């Protein structure tokens, strides 16, 4: 029985690892300036933990293989060296792993979340609501109009609760259902929610950030690849959670300008 267990366990282990190693299902290519570090971090972790996983499972397997008692006469063997070496090994090896991961990881994390957005970065106001994202550009005056929740009216397309009647800055604000950004230009988002918690997740940017009602949460990135990518909500927000999404469109600078014109034209 021990032998059977050993074989089955080994098979499970190898198959599991194979799919990781072959990248059968894998992350989409990164399109951000900060994502490379995340991918490197992931690879390091994969190798480190892969070894632990393999070692742990195989050790278990072969101990089970050898431990089966065919002859009741056989004497039990103590583990060579006893517990002390094992414990020390665990502390040292895992300790080193932890140290390196933390050391590298905190830098990666810092690059995304602990650095201020570049001063020249494009400011976009993002509002999440059940169950859609809306994006607001300051328009020609470069100023965002104030938001007044009580003025929000989806029926007339006033998703942000702007007050153009009395607030001039609000009149030229551009509100879009897609996040359109120029390539290689730092973008700085201000995330706020209309109702409940939501989350902003773009796999290709390697970023995820929750919307917290009542707070304006900053997030910044720089997209380096032209293309269309999905923004999805990862924070359970109600019945339409699965269908809460928008698109991130990364364009050439001139296309972006063109897009802005057409938007403000309407």
């Amino acid at each position, binding site marked *: 029985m021990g032998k059977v267990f050993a074989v089955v366990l080994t098979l499970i282990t190898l198959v*599991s690892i194979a799919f990781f190693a072959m990248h059968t299902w894998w992350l989409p290519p990164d399109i951000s300036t900060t994502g490379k570090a995340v991918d490197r971090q992931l690879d390091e972790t994969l190798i480190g933990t892969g070894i632990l996983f393999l070692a742990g499972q195989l050790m278990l397997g072969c101990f089970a293989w050898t431990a089966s008692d065919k002859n009741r006469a056989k004497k*039990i063997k103590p583990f060579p060296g006893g517990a002390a070496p*094992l414990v020390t090994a665990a502390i040292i090896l895992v300790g080193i792993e932890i140290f390196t991961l933390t050391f590298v990881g905190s830098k990666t*994390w810092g690059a995304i979340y602990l650095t201020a957005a570049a001063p020249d970065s494009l400011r976009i106001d993002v509002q999440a609501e059940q169950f859609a994202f809306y994006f607001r550009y300051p328009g020609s005056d470069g100023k965002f109009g104030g938001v007044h929740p009580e003025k929000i009216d989806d029926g007339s397309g006033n998703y942000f609760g702007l007050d153009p009647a009395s607030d001039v800055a609000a009149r030229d604000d551009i509100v879009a259902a897609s996040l359109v950004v120029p390539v290689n230009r730092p973008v700085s988002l201000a995330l706020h929610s209309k109702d409940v918690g939501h989350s902003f997740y773009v796999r290709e940017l390697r970023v995820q950030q929750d919307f917290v009602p009542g707070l304006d949460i900053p997030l910044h990135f720089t997209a380096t690849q032209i293309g269309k990518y999905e923004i999805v909500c990862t924070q*359970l927000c109600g019945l339409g959670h699965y269908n809460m999404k928008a698109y991130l469109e990364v364009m050439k600078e001139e296309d972006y300008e063109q897009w802005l014109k057409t938007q403000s034209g309407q």
Partner: protein
Amino acid sequence: MHDVSSKRIAHLHTAPTTFIRKYVFSLDHKVIGKQYYGLALVAVFVGMVLSWLLRIHLAYPGWHIPFLSKLSAAGAPDGVMTPEYYLSLLTMHGTLMVFFVLTNAPFAAFGNYFLPIQIGAEDMAFPRFNMMSFWTTFLAFVVMMASFFVADGPPISGWTAYAPLSAVGGDAGPGLALGQDLWAISIAIFCIGSLLGALNFIATTLDLRTKGMSLARMPYSTWAWFVTSVIALLAFAVLLPACILLILDRVAGTSFFIPGGLILSDKLQPHSGGSPLLWQHLFWFFGHPEVYIAILPSIGIIATILPVFTRKPLLGPRAFIGSMVAIGFLSYMVWGHHMFVSGMNPFSANLFSVPTLVITIPATILTLLLTASIYGGKMRFDTPALFCLGFISVFISGGISGFYLAQPSLDTYLHATYFVVAHFHFVMAVASLFGVFAGTYFWFPKMFGRMMNETLGKWHFWLTFLGVYCVFMPMHYLGLVGNVRRYSAFVDDYLAPLIPVHKFITIAALLTGAAQLIFFGNLIWSRFRGPIAPENPWEATSLEWTTTSPPPFDNFGGNHPVVKNGPNEYGVGGTDGNDYVMQNAAPKSA
């Protein structure tokens, strides 16, 4: 053969005579333990059926499930569940499994039954509290189940009930009116029950140990239950206030968790200034220790059972116990790793990341000690032993993925994906349940006086072991692709190619679930038809095996064993032909 102190004992309470006192409102920790076990069985069955429905909906959205439309005409018209009903069932699956199965089965059920016996007491320190704690938990269960039958069904806010979704009421969506009320009330009641239970466990361990039963001589399971009860005492003492505040926000119009200016259902909500993050902090301050409340008892159970079948002492007992205590201690410094991307100050992410990673050290030590204890043993591959091996394997698999999620920089990608689902199902759910299975096959003879059927047991193990790997290992791959969890359908372009994987998982889940029916069947069959169990069928050393199967009302027939050894006396040769020494037997001069 057992050396017990001959002193006659005055009992905590005399043996009950009426049916009610014997089996319903019993003060006997053994009956209460069985009651907890039964409750957990019911909960796990419901939870399992729910998981089938969820998996079917994900892989085969079109399927018509007739009885579903009976259960809720609105939630599943013509048997196809709506997105909101999917979330309702998801919430109930999580809540039932975490609270009523993973907290009840390994901790409350086995703990109640065996902790007093293993320390040589004839009952818990406070039998009345003990009875109250079960019936409180039962009430919580009834209230929770009631939400299935109220208008627009159970809440859709997940088992974490994040505010303000869970706090603003019906305007946030279906199930968030009465259903969410019932949820919050049920959990509050559950907290009270668990606090009473934990208090009882601690007092019993401290006060009722029999002569010679020093802390150092307590079996590992007892140690685990003791450590767990300390964790539970603190964790539920925090969840209870959180629930009270949540209930007040919902019914009394306060604004603890609800900020101002929220528009739901086109209505401006009459709240202001609350902090949604406050709920997350309070919840996870409970929530992370809860993970250890679920897993530590199983670790202890495995550590108690494994040596019995390897016929070899557990390696490094003190390091083992020390690691369990260390985990319990660290579990209170890591809650923030659930909130890396929650909008809390990103600086704190590093602060929470380090202790989270550090916790892997004691966890690794536990795993290594268990594994190394097998080396050079004379392994007997009875079902409990198989589940011990299985436990170690899934605990490794689940623990490994913790490395990823403990790092903020990777969590930004993996957070809220199926990678997380895979992680906590392996390390918390499957591992913990393997402990419960091992415990069941191991202690069933003691609890019911009959052996369980080995053949069925082995089938159960192999199908379950293969099954859980087929179900949860692929979820890691889904996570790497960025497949978001808690989606009731996969409408995003990049998720379409993953549907086949989901189909595979669903089929595996259905089969694994079916394998559990073997277990249920085995329980029932063995309860009535199983061969009569001797006093000590497994040749184990701890005190529960020194008394009859099942033990008499006062556990030791009016005597109290006097303990002379630790629980670890295996593989000691001797003249009597046994290779072990009972805890209350005279030490062998080997």
